[in-house]
């Protein structure tokens, strides 16, 4: 069990479920590291069993060189594909997610905040209803402000002041949600 799983197990089940549903936009669709780690472990285990440091030379060093060479070949192939116009780049095979559009980011954020609010409401018997109402009202205040800022940005997309206000508003929204999640977890 990972540290994160252990931490989530200590939380209220509904909050843990809400956290599980939070968007993980930055995570690549295909996580290569577990495979690489498994291969490295698999290959270095016999070396260690034989009392040899895999990084100290012999076959271990060759394996590292082979991995490095493999990475170099992949990098050169990709660069060659890009130079040829990019159309032949094997994007489908890499399964990379497309960049997140603002709208889908908003939807993902709204979905995660709904989850946190649902977890908070589930604990309403344990919490002061006035506190829950305060958080909801203030999230509405922030959301209305953000809506107004976004409308203004739509009319003046290069306005740095508006962009800064939007960024601050989103940070404040995150802070209020963090407080809500803490409350839901500690009730």
């Amino acid at each position, binding site marked *: 069990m990972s540290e994160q799983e252990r931490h989530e197990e200590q939380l209220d089940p509904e909050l843990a479920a809400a956290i599980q549903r939070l968007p993980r936009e930055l995570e690549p669709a295909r996580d290569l590291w577990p495979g690489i780690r498994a291969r490295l472990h698999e290959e270095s285990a016999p070396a260690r069993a034989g009392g040899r440091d895999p990084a100290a030379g012999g076959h271990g060093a060759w394996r590292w060189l082979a991995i490095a060479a493999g990475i170099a070949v992949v990098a050169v192939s990709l660069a060659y594909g890009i130079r040829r116009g990019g159309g032949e780049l094997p994007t489908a095979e890499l399964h990379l997610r497309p960049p997140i559009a603002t709208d889908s980011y908003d939807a993902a954020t709204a979905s995660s905040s709904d989850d946190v609010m649902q977890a908070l409401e589930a604990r309403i018997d*344990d919490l002061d209803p006035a506190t829950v109402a*305060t*958080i909801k009202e203030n999230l509405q*205040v*922030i959301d209305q402000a953000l809506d107004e800022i976004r409308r203004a940005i739509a009319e003046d997309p290069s306005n740095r002041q508006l962009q800064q*206000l939007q960024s601050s508003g989103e940070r*404040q929204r995150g*802070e209020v949600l963090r*407080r809500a999640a803490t*409350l839901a977890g500690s009730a």
Partner: protein
Amino acid sequence: MRIAIALGTIVLLGASVAYADRPVDQTAKVNKDGTVSVSNIAGSVTVVGGNRSDVHITGRLDDNVEELRVEERDGDLRIEVILPRRSHRGGDADLKLEVPKGVALDIETVSANIEVEGVAGDVDLESVSGGVRVEGGDGVADVQSVSGDIELTGAFENVDAESVSGGIDVKGASGRIDASTTSGRIEVAGGDFDSVDLESMSGRVEFAGDPRKDADISIESFSGRVVLTLPASLSAEIDVETHSGSIESDFGSGVRKEKYGAGAWLETSVGGGEASIEVSTFSGSVSLRKK
């Protein structure tokens, strides 16, 4: 009739037994620069610093409180109001702590008010709906609430205050202050500052203080009005911008308005321009006043 009176008497006696308060009166050890931590859901926590070497705890626990746990560890002290597991009745405790004035405080409550007086160590205070009031501190203050008001009075050198709907009122601080609220108001009246960062969505923001040389003063609000009261001898670069509010300034005469919109901005340098003052609002109006 007699039966009714007898039954009523029994019910009243039962109620008085069920809700009887238990007094608290105990003493615990703490290092003079140790940390006193307190956790209490409801009621109140009052801490008074003084010339003493131990902690004297007095107050009362209501009948829904299981126990008051007091643990001394490595020169620190932890005081916890324990409620029965999965209790839905709540438990109310009023605690008063007399502590050595140099200790640091770490207090968490839900609806309990927190009051601190005469403690010189760092204070880390958090409440959900309870108010937080600190008088006489001079260290670092880190205070958070959801709906409770925050009031800090003292020569704090480093303040972090965060609230959702509660007001934040800081008097006498200097050095660095970082305060943020969504709908509460922020009022800072202090000495001289190196760094000021105040942020509000709809609450009013008022700052009165002296920027030190090379100070950074940053105030941001969505719809709340912003009022800065600054020394007449101010030396600063001033950059004020509002998307649809208005600007009034006693400094400089360069308030400019959008030709085809409601916005305004002011960019000016006064004195030697040593400090930096930036104010940004969406629709909140901005006033810069001379002391």
